[in-house]
C-alpha cells in the first residue's frame, strides 16, 4: 500500500540580500494514517515544511523536492486547479492563532460555508453539515457561533471553529501548526482532546507541528526533531527518553518536571556541528 | 578622523564613535537608495535643478525679463535661436525657465525650513508631555488639517496680499500639520523607552530631552515626509502663481508663465506647455526620490 504522503529532500529557500537562504534543507519522511510530530524551535523550518506540503510557500520563497507525493499523486508540478481540489478536501491546515487565521470581517458561518459548500449539494445541506461540525468540536450553542464574528469569540472557541472549518470536508491529512500555542493552558488540553478524538475517529493522518516535545510525546506516534532546517533525529514517541541526538536530549531535559528534577534548569547548549 | 573615511570604516559592525555610527548609517541608507533606479532618476533631476538655478546667468542666452523686438520676435515657435520659443512679450521662454528654477528652489527650501521645525516642535512637545498639552496642540493641528491646503493658502494670500513671500508664508502655514502628526506618533513610541527614562533620572530638563534626544529620532521620518511633500509644495506654489497670487510679473515663475500663455494655447501651444513640462519634471523628480526614500526607510510598504 502506498503511504499517504511521501516527502524526499524537501527544500524551501527565500531570497535575501546575500543570495538565497534555505530555511528547510533536505527534509525527508513518509507518513501513513498515523500521527507524526515535527518538533523544533522557532526558525527551525518546521512551519515552512508544513506549508510547503500544501504548496503555500509564501512568495518570493521557493520550495523544491526530489519527491512530494500525496497518495501517489506528484504534487511538485500540480496546477492551481489540482491544488484547489486537494486543499480543503484532502489536506487541511490548522494554524496557531484564530485571531489571525479567521477573516475578521466575515461571520464564522460564512467562513464555514465556504468550506462546506464545496462538498455539499445544497446550501441547506452545507449549513446542516457546518452546524453539525461545530457541535462535533463541542460547541454548545452552534447557531450563536455560526452568526458571530471572530472577535466575538474567545481564543479557545475560535480555534474550535477553525478546527471545525478544516474538518468539514473530511480530509485525509490534517496539518496542525502549533494549534494550541496561542491558547490558555486549561483550554489547550480541551482543544487537544477534541483534535485527538476527531483524528482517531475519522482515521486521518496528522502532522502535528510544535515546539513542545513533552506535549507531542503524549499525543503522537512518531517524532521528527528539526534543527536549522534539517531533521536531526527521527524516533518513536515512546522512545524519547532514549534519544541519541544531543539536541533532542537537550530539548527533553530542559523541560521542568513536577517530581523535583534538576535545579536550575539546564540551558540548551547548541553546537554549530548540528546545523551542518 | 577623515583618514578613516573608508568603506570599512563606514560599514564597521561596531562603530567606535557616535559620529561613525551616524555617518555609517547614512552611508548604508545611501547604498540602499543607490540600487533604486527611480530614486536615482529623481536625485539626478533635483541635482540638475540646483545646477540650473546656480548657473542660470551663464546658461541663459537671453534676458529673462527684457524681451526682444515686439514686432518680429513675439510668439516665435521653438527654433535653434529660441529653444522653447518666445512669449507674447518676445521673451525667450528657455531663459525664463532657467531663471524660474531659482524661484522654485527658493519656495521649496524656504517652506521646508519654516514648516519642518514648526511641525517637529509641535509634534514632539505634544507627544512628550501628553495630557491637556497634547489635546490642545493636536486639536489645533486637526483644525489646520480640516482645510484643503490650497484653499487655506488662497485665503491667507488673499489676506496678506499677493506676492512670492506671502505665498511662501501661506504654504508654510498650511504645510506643518502633517509633520506635527508624524512627529507626535514617533515621540509616543520612544517616550517611554529606557534611554529616555535614564536621561530623565539624570535630571535633564524636558527641553533638553526633547531637543537633544527626541527630535533627532523623529527627524529621519519627518525628512522623508517633507521630501514626499516637496512635489505638492511645488504644485501649490505653481497653482498660486497661476491664479496670480504668487510671484508677480514680470518674474519668471513657472505657474504664472502658464497663466500668461493660457490665452495663446490654441495657436501658440509652446508658451503654456514649456513651463508646465518644467513643473512636471521637477515634481516628478521629487516624487521619485521621495518614493525611493520611503522604500529604504519603510521596507514594509513596498517589498
Amino acid at each position: 500500500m502506498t503511504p499517504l504522503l511521501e516527502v524526499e529532500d524537501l527544500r524551501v529557500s527565500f531570497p535575501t540580500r546575500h543570495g538565497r537562504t534555505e530555511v528547510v534543507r533536505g527534509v525527508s519522511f513518509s507518513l501513513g494514517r498515523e500521527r507524526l510530530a515535527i518538533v523544533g524551535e522557532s526558525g527551525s523550518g518546521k512551519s515552512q515544511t508544513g506549508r510547503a506540503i500544501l504548496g503555500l510557500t509564501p512568495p518570493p520563497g521557493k520550495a523544491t523536492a526530489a519527491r512530494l507525493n500525496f497518495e501517489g499523486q506528484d504534487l511538485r508540478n500540480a496546477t492551481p486547479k489540482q491544488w484547489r481540489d486537494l486543499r480543503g478536501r484532502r489536506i487541511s491546515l490548522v494554524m496557531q492563532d484564530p485571531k489571525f487565521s479567521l477573516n475578521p470581517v466575515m461571520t464564522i458561518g460564512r467562513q464555514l460555508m465556504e468550506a462546506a459548500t464545496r462538498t455539499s449539494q445544497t446550501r441547506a445541506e452545507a449549513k446542516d453539515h457546518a452546524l453539525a461540525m461545530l457541535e462535533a468540536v463541542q460547541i454548545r450553542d452552534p447557531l450563536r457561533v455560526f452568526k458571530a464574528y471572530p472577535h466575538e469569540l474567545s481564543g479557545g472557541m475560535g480555534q474550535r471553529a477553525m478546527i471545525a472549518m478544516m474538518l468539514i470536508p473530511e480530509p485525509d491529512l490534517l496539518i496542525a501548526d502549533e494549534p494550541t500555542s496561542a491558547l490558555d493552558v486549561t483550554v489547550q488540553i480541551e482543544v487537544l482532546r477534541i483534535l485527538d478524538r476527531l483524528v482517531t475517529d475519522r482515521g486521518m493522518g496528522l502532522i502535528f507541528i510544535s515546539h513542545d516535545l513533552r506535549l507531542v510525546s503524549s499525543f503522537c506516534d512518531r517524532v521528527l526533531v528539526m534543527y536549522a532546517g534539517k531533521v536531526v533525529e527521527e524516533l518513536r514517541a515512546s522512545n524519547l527518553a532514549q534519544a541519541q541526538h544531543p539536541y533532542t536530549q537537550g530539548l527533553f531535559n530542559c523541560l521542568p518536571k513536577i517530581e523535583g528534577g534538576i535545579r536550575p534548569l539546564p540551558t540548551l547548549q547548541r553546537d554549530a556541528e548540528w546545523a551542518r | 578622523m577623515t583618514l578613516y573615511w573608508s568603506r570599512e570604516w563606514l560599514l564597521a559592525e561596531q562603530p567606535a564613535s557616535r559620529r561613525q555610527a551616524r555617518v555609517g548609517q547614512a552611508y548604508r541608507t545611501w547604498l540602499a537608495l543607490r540600487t533604486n533606479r527611480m530614486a536615482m532618476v529623481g536625485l539626478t533631476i533635483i541635482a540638475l535643478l540646483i545646477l540650473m538655478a546656480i548657473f542660470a546667468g551663464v546658461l541663459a542666452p537671453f534676458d529673462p525679463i527684457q524681451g526682444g523686438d515686439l514686432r518680429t520676435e513675439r510668439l516665435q515657435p521653438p527654433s535653434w535661436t529660441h529653444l522653447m520659443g518666445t512669449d507674447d512679450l518676445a521673451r525667450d521662454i528657455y531663459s525664463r525657465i532657467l531663471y524660474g528654477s531659482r524661484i522654485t528652489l527658493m519656495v521649496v527650501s524656504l517652506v521646508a525650513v519654516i514648516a519642518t521645525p514648526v511641525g517637529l516642535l509641535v509634534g514632539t512637545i505634544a507627544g512628550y508631555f501628553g495630557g491637556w498639552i497634547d489635546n490642545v496642540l493636536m486639536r489645533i493641528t486637526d483644525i489646520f488639517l480640516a482645510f484643503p491646503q490650497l484653499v487655506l493658502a488662497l485665503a491667507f494670500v488673499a489676506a496678506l496680499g499677493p506676492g512670492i513671500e506671502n505665498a511662501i508664508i501661506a504654504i508654510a502655514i498650511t504645510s506643518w500639520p502633517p509633520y506635527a502628526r508624524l512627529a507626535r506618533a514617533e515621540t509616543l513610541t520612544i517616550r517611554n523607552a529606557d534611554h529616555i527614562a535614564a536621561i530623565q533620572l539624570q535630571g535633564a530638563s524636558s527641553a533638553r530631552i526633547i531637543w537633544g534626544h527626541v527630535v533627532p529620532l523623529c527627524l529621519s521620518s519627518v525628512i522623508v515626509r517633507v521630501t514626499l511633500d516637496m512635489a505638492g509644495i511645488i504644485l501649490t506654489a505653481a497653482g498660486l502663481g497661476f491664479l496670480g497670487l504668487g510671484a508677480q510679473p514680470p518674474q519668471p515663475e513657472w505657474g504664472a508663465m502658464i497663466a500668461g500663455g493660457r490665452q495663446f494655447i490654441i495657436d501658440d501651444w509652446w508658451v503654456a506647455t514649456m513651463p508646465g513640462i518644467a513643473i512636471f519634471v521637477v515634481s516628478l523628480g521629487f516624487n521619485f526620490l521621495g518614493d525611493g526614500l520611503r522604500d529604504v526607510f519603510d521596507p514594509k510598504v513596498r517589498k
Partner: protein
Amino acid sequence: MTFDASEQEGRRGALPPWLKRLGSLFITLVVTLFGLLLVTFMIGRVVPIDPVLAAVGDRASASTYHKVYLALGLDKPIWEQFLIYVNQVLHGNLGESVLTSRPVLEDIGTVFPATLELSTVAILIGTLVGIPAGVLAAVRQGRLSDQVVRVLGLVGYSAPIFWLGLLGLLLFYAKLGWVSGPGRLDVGYQFSVDRITGLMLVDTALEGQWDAFWNAVSHIILPASLLGYYSMAYISRMTRSFMLQELGQEYIITARVKGVSERRIIWGHALRNAAVPLVTVVALSYGNLLQGAVLTETIFAWPGLGMYLTNSLGSADMNAVLGSTLVIGAAFVALNLLSDVLYTFLDPRVRRQQ
C-alpha cells in the same frame, strides 16, 4: 473640557460603543468647526483692506463712515467681535459679496451644485478605476502592470492640474473635437434647462431633455476625468498598499487551504478587509477634489465654488473669499465625519463590540 466628555461616558458604560463613538465624533466636529471659524475670522482681521471703506465706498461722509464702523462692531473688543461673527455665521449670514451685492451664502448656494456635480462624477471615475488598478498592482506585485500603475500614479502626483487641463482642452476640444469646450452646456441649451437641483445631468434627465443631457455629458467628461485621474492616483496607491498588507495575513492562507478560488480570495476576502480603511481614503480624496476644483474650474470656466472663489480673490471680495473657504472647510470636515461613520458600520470589530 469638552473632549473629555466621551471618555467619561465610556466609564459609565451606559451607551453602546458605536453610539459613544458617534458622540465623540460629533464633539470633534463641533470643536473643529469652531476652529475653522476662528481661522477665517483671524484671516479676516489681518486683511489690509478697511472693511468699512469696502462697504461704504471712498466717497462716503465721515458720519456715514462712523455709523458703519459702529454697525460692523469694530469698536468692540476683539473677542466680542468674534462672538458676533460666530453668531452671524450660525444664522447663515456670511456677509454680502462686494462683487455681486448679494448675500454670500445665496451666491454659494447658486454655484455649489456645479462643483458638487463635477467632483461627484470625478470621484466615481477615480474610485471605479483606482480600486481595480490598485488591486491589480498588488496581485501582480513587481510585474509590469504594477509598474504601470505606479508610474501612472506618480505622474498624477506630479503634473499641475491646470496645465493638464489646458493641454486637454487643446487636444480633445480644439484639435480633435471629441468633447465640448468650457462651461457646463452649449450656449444654445443654456436657457432651455430649468433649475431643479442645480445638477445639470440630473435636471436635464428629469426634464427629459436628452439632447441637453448628452451635451452636458460632453462638457463634464473632460474636467471630471482630469480630476478623477488625480484621485485615481491616490486611491490606486493606497489600495495597493492595503491589499498587499491584507494578502499577507493568515486568514488568506486559511482561505487558500479551504480551496477558495483566487478571485474570491482577492475580491471577497482581501478587498473586503481593505475596504474598511479605503472608505477613509475615498472620502479624503473627495475632499481634495474640492481643492482641485478651484484650479480646474478656472480652466474650464465651470461656474462652481472654485470659480466663485477665484473671481472673489481677483476683486479682493473678502466676505466671499472667507465664506467659500469656510464652506469648503466645513464640507471637508463633514466628509471626514461621514467616513468615520461608514468605518463604524463596515468594521464589525467596531460595530459589534462586546
